């Protein structure tokens, strides 16, 4: 897995009996789950895709994405999405649908 930056919060509540590092890891995993869920649903639900096209921030909020996650997805920032732990295949298919070429995706992932 690629290293992930510190999330901006918005994750699930911490489990008090565990160490802070572990909390952070779990928060990131759960957070990436929500981004991945959004990308999966966008693939599968044409109406959601339409809604996302009209008002991406509203959809990002519905999926409880952090500001960084929302920005990465809305701006089709593959570098940021990869760093945030987005599932590689979901990332690839999403960028294809948003019109990004393989060559541009490769360029952006080199910086991930």
């Amino acid at each position, binding site marked *: 897995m690629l290293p992930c930056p510190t999330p901006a919060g918005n994750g699930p509540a911490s489990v008090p009996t565990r160490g802070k590092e572990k909390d952070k890891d779990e928060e990131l995993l759960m957070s990436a*789950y929500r981004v991945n869920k959004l990308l999966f649903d966008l*693939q599968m639900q044409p109406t959601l895709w339409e809604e996302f096209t009209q008002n991406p921030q509203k959809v990002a909020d519905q999926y409880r994405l952090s500001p960084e996650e929302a920005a990465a997805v809305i701006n089709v920032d593959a570098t940021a999405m990869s760093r945030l732990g987005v599932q590689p*295949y979901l990332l690839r298919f999403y960028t294809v649908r948003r019109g990004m070429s*393989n060559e541009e995706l*490769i360029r952006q992932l080199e910086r991930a």
Partner: protein
Amino acid sequence: MAEIVAAVACGHAPGIATRPEPDAAGRKQRFFDALAQARARLREARPTALLVVSNEHLQNFFLNNWPAFCLAYPEEMEGPIESWLPGPKMTLRGYPEFGRYLLTAGLNAHFDLAASQELRPDHAVILPLRYLRPEADLPVTILLQNCVEPPFPTLQRCLQLGRFLGRAIAEWPRPDRFALIGVGGISHWIGIKRMGEINEAWDRWFLDLVCRGRSEEIARIPPESIARDAGNGGEEIRNWLTVLAAIGDRPGELLAYEPVPDWVIGAAVVYWDLNGKAR
């Protein structure tokens, strides 16, 4: 009793449909020529049913319910599921009776496969079939193995599952003539750093093992080395291994190997002529 009369393993990159235009080195054309040859030979083998060993790419299934192995046996399937993939849709007839048999035989042999009676096959199944059996006239059963979201089933488990498939097909009471199709790979990096790399030396080493029928050696490849040497896309060698184990480690014939930068994969086609020789 059924038999396995032929097998094919080949790449399945979306680029086959999105970027089919010829490349200066003629690599894509040699891959397409190999698929055409495999199609002709498959026709001569007169199969009556297909079993495709593939992997889901998070398009039917999500991480809320993600199987290591899933047997898909709908009555009918239309694909590709991807709205963005160029080319015609294919409607495949399923083989529910065989699927149910295989699922039961698996449980009895301690392979607890997930089951799906509804599936919209993705590029991984549809693109190979567009070239290998565009008539879509044979009933298709699909075995999906997790090759895209870690942790993965072990290579050893894929080997065992392949062995089981070979036995189960031999014991299927109808006089079917199966062709097995394993898809994916070989080396490629998808959606991660290093995307665009192709490890031609590794691919050729792997193909040599495949064509010599060395499934036990493939099953001993250190699991952590696959992502390092063949990329996250290289995990799809599981589909090749399961097919090779199912056909009893028969030697195969390499029809093409082409590293295709536009498709970001090492693209290969291997064919096995197995008339009456599969086990």
